[in-house]
């Protein structure tokens, strides 16, 4: 079975309406279907791994978003489901995100190590 690395870079697009990130979601579905899949968070998507996000309270006129997205929980659940989940260290540092804020089990790679990460997978899916 091909080893897939799914790269998530474009973040917080449609996450309110979808109640999740569509690529994290489909990656989890693929894992459930038996895929050997890993995830690399890079660029703005590294923020998905920051714990304590709260997207509640949104209302349009009288219509409330009753179940907001919980992207930090989604990352935790992916890791818990056995999906190796990586984030680019420099992208975290550029945004002032400390390691203590991150989901437990998240693996950090430097930009210099990304090529090796690609090499360790058969298929690179850059969404």
């Amino acid at each position, binding site marked *: 079975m091909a080893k897939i690395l799914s790269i998530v870079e474009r973040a*917080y697009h449609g996450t309110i309406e979808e109640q999740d990130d569509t690529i994290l979601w489909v990656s989890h579905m693929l894992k459930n279907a038996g895929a050997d899949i890993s995830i690399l968070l890079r660029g703005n998507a590294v923020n998905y791994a920051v714990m304590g996000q709260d997207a509640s309270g949104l209302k349009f006129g009288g219509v409330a978003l009753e179940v907001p997205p919980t992207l930090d929980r989604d990352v935790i659940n992916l890791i818990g489901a056995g999906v190796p989940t990586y984030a680019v260290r420099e992208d975290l540092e550029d945004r002032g995100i400390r390691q203590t804020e991150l989901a437990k089990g998240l693996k950090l790679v430097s930009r210099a190590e990304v090529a090796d990460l690609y090499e360790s997978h058969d298929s690179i899916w850059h969404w």
Partner: protein
Amino acid sequence: MAKLTIALMDSPYESGTTTTAMRIADAAVRKGHTVNVFAYEGAVSLTMKEQKAHPNPVKGTSVEEQKHPTTATFVAGLLATGKVDWINCGMCVDERGAGNWIEGARRGGPADLLKWANDSTNTLIMGSR
């Protein structure tokens, strides 16, 4: 009170700009302003009446538990305030076969955007990126 015109271009469920535009419209309405929204290209699908909520198999939640929102529901919430007018670009609708909308959205064209822009305090264009 001010009148704001917003032009949207992104299709539902794929963009952060749509939610941002709706937040701006909602905030403006809450302050007593009126808002015109011109939905262009993919944005005409925001008001599609037959959008349906779905369960979330990753979280194991049912439709009822997940309370999945639709963009049409969000737009309906804005329209129900009576302070928001919504026009879908007719040609964009036709090429997509996207003509079955929620109540309150209406058909128009670029000339309506121009008229609104001329009549408004300001116009915000949120194109696709």
